[in-house]
């Protein structure tokens, strides 16, 4: 039972990180039907910014809690700037182009950002400080769930709730939903679609940056390539849950994280990816639109 709980919480933690990244994929897809392959790189840039910011803040003697919070906020802002710029440079000029063009542009952006960070920083792995301290009072249970896992779960939940409220009740949230339903119609009723798209990129990038900082602090190391695998997995999760659907991305991520964790724990880590992708295949066979996605016939 204890083993099950450990695996369950480990899977949820991993799923939370996937969810923070997957939301960016799914929101962008929902609005401009683009798979933003550079999104994993935004996550990586978030982690690198986090490293620089937290090192500086610690050097200036800020407290643990202040460092954690400020690091999260500042990396989110910095990554948001990246997400915003990437959209303006690589996707906006191609908005009327055939659908494959922005996709290729996205892949190019991903490669560019990876190499940029590699050249500007380092190609080596670098240590990342543990921003989340161990809760000593948690002692009898700390082997089941560590403090950083708890913080990741908590932060993800808070962000998900905030995002849901934002999209449901704010003006720009409503505009986002309207744009997702029908971009031309939204423009006709006077919604500034360009602003909506920029906002989507900014929100997605913020979430990815938070995910990047939290997991980097949990794992303790980063390099320029971490965004690639995390991005692929998060993209899988978004498809699993139904790309374009926000609750779907969260559900898909949790399912993916848990499947991986249990596959490793009860079968073998050799089959971690095998099970994850088998699950994807089966879900797509029986529900082609993903778990919560609407199935519509489209040319891709």
């Amino acid at each position: 039972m204890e083993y099950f709980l450990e695996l369950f919480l480990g899977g949820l933690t991993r799923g939370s990180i996937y969810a923070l990244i997957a939301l960016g994929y799914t929101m962008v897809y929902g609005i401009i039907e683009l798979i933003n392959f550079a999104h994993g790189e935004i996550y990586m840039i978030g982690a690198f910014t986090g490293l620089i910011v937290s090192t500086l803040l610690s050097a200036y003697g800020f407290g643990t809690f202040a460092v954690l919070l400020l690091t999260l906020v500042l990396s989110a802002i910095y990554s948001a700037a990246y997400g915003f710029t990437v959209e303006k440079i690589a996707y906006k000029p191609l908005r009327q182009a055939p659908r494959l063009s922005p996709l290729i542009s996205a892949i190019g952006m991903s490669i560019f950002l990876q190499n940029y960070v590699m050249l500007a920083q380092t190609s080596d792995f670098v240590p990342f400080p543990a921003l989340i301290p161990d809760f000593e009072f948690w002692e009898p249970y700390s082997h089941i769930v560590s403090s950083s896992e708890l913080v990741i779960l908590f932060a993800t939940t808070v962000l998900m709730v905030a995002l849901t409220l934002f999209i449901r009740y704010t003006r720009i949230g409503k505009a986002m939903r309207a744009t997702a339903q029908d971009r031309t119609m939204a423009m006709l009723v006077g919604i500034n679609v360009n602003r909506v798209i920029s906002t989507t990129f900014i929100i997605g990038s913020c979430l990815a940056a938070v995910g990047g900082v939290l997991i980097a602090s949990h794992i303790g190391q980063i390099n320029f390539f971490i965004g690639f695998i995390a991005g692929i997995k998060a993209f899988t999760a978004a498809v699993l849950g139904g790309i374009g659907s926000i609750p779907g991305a969260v559900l898909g991520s949790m399912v993916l994280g848990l499947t991986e964790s249990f596959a490793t724990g009860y079968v073998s880590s050799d089959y971690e990816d095998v099970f994850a992708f088998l699950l994807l295949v089966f879900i797509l066979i029986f529900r082609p639109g993903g778990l919560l996605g609407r199935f519509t016939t489209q040319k891709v």
Partner: protein
Amino acid sequence: MKAKRMRMGWLAAALAAVVVVGMSGSVLAEDTLKIGVAGAHSGDLASYGLPIAKAAKLVVEEINAKGGVLGKKVELVVEDDVCKPEVATNTATKLASQGVPVVVGHVCSGATKAALGIYKASKIIAMSASATNPDLTQSGEYPNFFRTIASDDAQAKLEVEFALNTLKLKKIAVLHDKGDYGKGLAEYAKGFIEKSGKAEVVFYEGITPGAVDYSAVVQKIKKSQADGVIFGGYHPEASKIVSQMRKDKMKTAFISDDGVKDDTFIKVAGKFAEGVYATGPKDTSKNPMDKMVREAYKKAYGEDVGVFSINGYAATLALLNAIQKAGSTDYDAIVKALRTEYVETPLGKIKFDERGDAIGVGFSVYQVKDGKYVEVVN
């Protein structure tokens, strides 16, 4: 037509020149001792082969300056095999027809295997500075093969011996990163543990390199109550696993390979790296001969020694020394000398065992102590 005849004429002239040069070569060879050097000297693996050939040249120059071997000057016959087995057989035939008693080479294990059959038939001894395939010495099929580098399974063997005899572990989890290098090592380690019967392999698994985290695997190690982990792979995964284990307050011993014996591992894993064991090539930098060779190489070629230069130097030296000690180029006499006479090389004082592996060449166990890898003295 006229032009064609002209070309034919040129060709004939060129051919004649080649023949003359070839003949003058064999005339010169009368009073020299020819030894072969074979390996990849062109193509994408030339960076492994060339430094060995250059090191061999260095040895020969030095020995010739001292009067040569058995009173004769030594002459190198350098042949390229591009590390391809099908080319290597041609290379070997060519060297055999030149009548060399010994060959330094080849470089790649596959090419070495292909060439060895031909050498065996012509009673030629081959000594490789870089072929690490265990079969070459362990299968017993190649009595004419020797090497100055440890075989692939030597690390695994050392890891297992250390785990069983020094740390006295009873339950060992064997992990790898699914790569050629890591998985190969892990497979040997598992085999050695099972053969020894002294400990149990509680589980044997491959992890996905680059995964977001390894908490599930770490929980599994904990549940299996393994008292040690042997990991085949590189440092990024190793540091993630070790950090997670130590954060979970697990004291399980962690033993890995030279893919982890890297300062980046210590830098990244920080305080969690303390106490981790890793095997790595024996430290020869304190050997004065090693230092001398490095300097001579740099002076002669204007570049630092290549990966296998030191091994190549040692191989050439060992072969020439054996010929000198044997007093002739007779196959059996040289083999006997290689197995019985110690020779001073940059790798230390070595001789060869029955199967052809160098005794005294190989790996040591290191442990992280105060942020540094320190050699563990058994």
